[in-house]
């Protein structure tokens, strides 16, 4: 009998420091994965936590972890060459077929950028996939910007807007909440558009709201939810909202469904 709760050890290939509190762990990989899916990361003695895959390629994947609690702080003690216990991948992830050939806008706040990074990199490498990609990112302050090296690269190919809640003055960086800049995003004929909004709950609510305000139909917007999770297998009940299990049917939801989910 298969035991889906059993984590497996994988070598850490490399660790990148994105910011003081966010590290990216590059791990070996021998399973299929989709953009926006997540793994259950184990740290024996501490527990498990759901962490999004922030990029992947042949035989490897990356996860970007923000130190906020017991597990996410202790995991920073691991070094390249150590093994990390994981199980998964879980969740639906983004259905790329919804975005192929479209004008795609991705609005991401803070660590919310992690789950969409692999998709942006995919589009970067294979530009023809979408008609055009516009990026709108919001961070708290200069030191909280993650994936600097990617953003510099993305800027060359995509229309990229970066906002900081509490500061400005950097090259191409605007001040204020990301929601204030939705009005500056160029829109296309709605039929040919897709918008992904991802970040903390409040940010997603108001940013998606701004896009709806501008006339973008709810069906053209996608969001990704974060909920307390224990099992990621549809059993523990922690992530349930109405008849929906975020670990199974999510974390990515079409906004037309997401607005109807009542916690």
């Amino acid at each position, binding site marked *: 009998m298969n035991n889906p709760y*059993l984590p497996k050890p994988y070598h850490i290939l490399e660790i990148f420091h994105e910011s003081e509190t966010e590290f990216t762990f590059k791990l070996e990989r021998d399973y299929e994965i989709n953009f926006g899916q997540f793994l259950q990361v184990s740290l024996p003695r501490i527990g498990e936590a759901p962490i999004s895959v922030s990029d992947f390629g042949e035989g490897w994947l990356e996860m970007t972890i923000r130190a906020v609690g017991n597990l*996410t702080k202790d995991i920073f003690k691991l070094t390249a060459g150590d093994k990390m216990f994981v199980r998964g991948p879980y969740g639906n992830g983004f259905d790329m077929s919804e975005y192929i050939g479209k004008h795609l806008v991705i609005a991401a706040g803070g660590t919310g950028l992690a789950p969409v990074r692999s998709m942006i990199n995919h589009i970067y490498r294979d530009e023809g996939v979408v008609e055009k990609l516009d990026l709108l990112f919001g961070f708290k302050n200069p030191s909280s910007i993650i994936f600097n090296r990617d953003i510099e690269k993305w800027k060359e190919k995509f229309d990229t807007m970066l906002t900081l809640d509490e500061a400005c003055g950097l090259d191409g960086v605007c001040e204020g909440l990301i929601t204030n800049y939705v009005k500056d995003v160029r829109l296309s004929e709605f039929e040919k558009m897709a918008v992904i909004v991802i970040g903390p709950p409040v940010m997603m609510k108001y940013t998606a709201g701004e896009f709806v305000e501008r006339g973008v139909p709810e069906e053209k917007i996608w969001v990704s939810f974060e909920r*307390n999770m224990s099992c990621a297998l549809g059993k*523990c009940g922690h992530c349930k909202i*109405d008849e929906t299990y975020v670990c199974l049917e999510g974390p990515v939801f079409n906004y037309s469904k997401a607005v109807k989910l009542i916690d």
Partner: protein
Amino acid sequence: MGKSVSTTEFNEMLKTLAGEYRIFAPKRFVHHGKCTGTDLIRYGEVHSLDEIEYKAKSNFSLKEILHPINQTIFYFTETEFSEPATENKGIVIFARPCDINGVFRLDNIFLHNGDEEDYYYKKPRDKVRFVMMECTVGFENCFCVSMDTNKSDDYHMAVRFGGEEYLLDIRDQFFIDVLEGVGEDIEFTPDFIKRNRVEVRLPEIDRMPPAMYDHEMWDEYSTRCIACGRCTTTCITCSCFTTTDIANEDNPKQGERRRTWASCHIEGFTDMAGGHGFRKKNGEKMRFKTLHKIYDYNRRFGKGPMCVGCGRCDDACPVYISFSNCINKVTSYV
């Protein structure tokens, strides 16, 4: 096939079974009840008839046999996870019809929700044989008839207690073999309760009106409910759990991962790092549980409500919140 057996013959059968099976039934634990001088009735292993409490309703359901309150799922060292050894014996459970129906609800969550079966539930579940205890009178707070769970034919053997002899309806070859040549062959099929004192009406709707989610009816529960979770621990169909790691005191490099019952009625169930959580008000917790039991589950699995009307939640609530009453209120408001 029907049989009538004596106490001695029944006990002999239990003895024979005990070789290959662990036998679980409701047992009375004197003076262990929730108030002074009261007893606790819960499931435990039995070896003879006099240990089985068939007259009263058990305060806790049989779910802990399949989904223990607290269970080690692995042992670990720094480099390895290993599974605990499992019990090879089969399992015989004496259960009322509501609880047998309840187990099929648990099956939906643990075995049919998502692509993976729950390894720890499936192992004991596959070994279960039900001995249905005929239940024709019911107890205070039961509303199984309204939930259509007063009957079951998913049993391996049914038994009528209370007479001189024990009347059996045997459906399973295994029990037929065990009872070969024992007792007297008779005609017997179990009866079921036809009416409870408590009746509920379920909402007949396709979609729960959004206004129901913040309806003022929930405010009362915000004031009364103390979020103790007793209604969910006693519930046969509540299945939620949390996993936690525990380090060995002597050797902190080793330890175990456990899973423990969790409850949407208890604070912290939805909390995420940083303390952000949902349903902070106890009325919202009550709303979430209620809609799950009578609406969400059915929308997901299309097999009727999750609640089986055992009424244990009402029996257990320290502030006398009545779930049947709550269901009727929802129905009257939608």
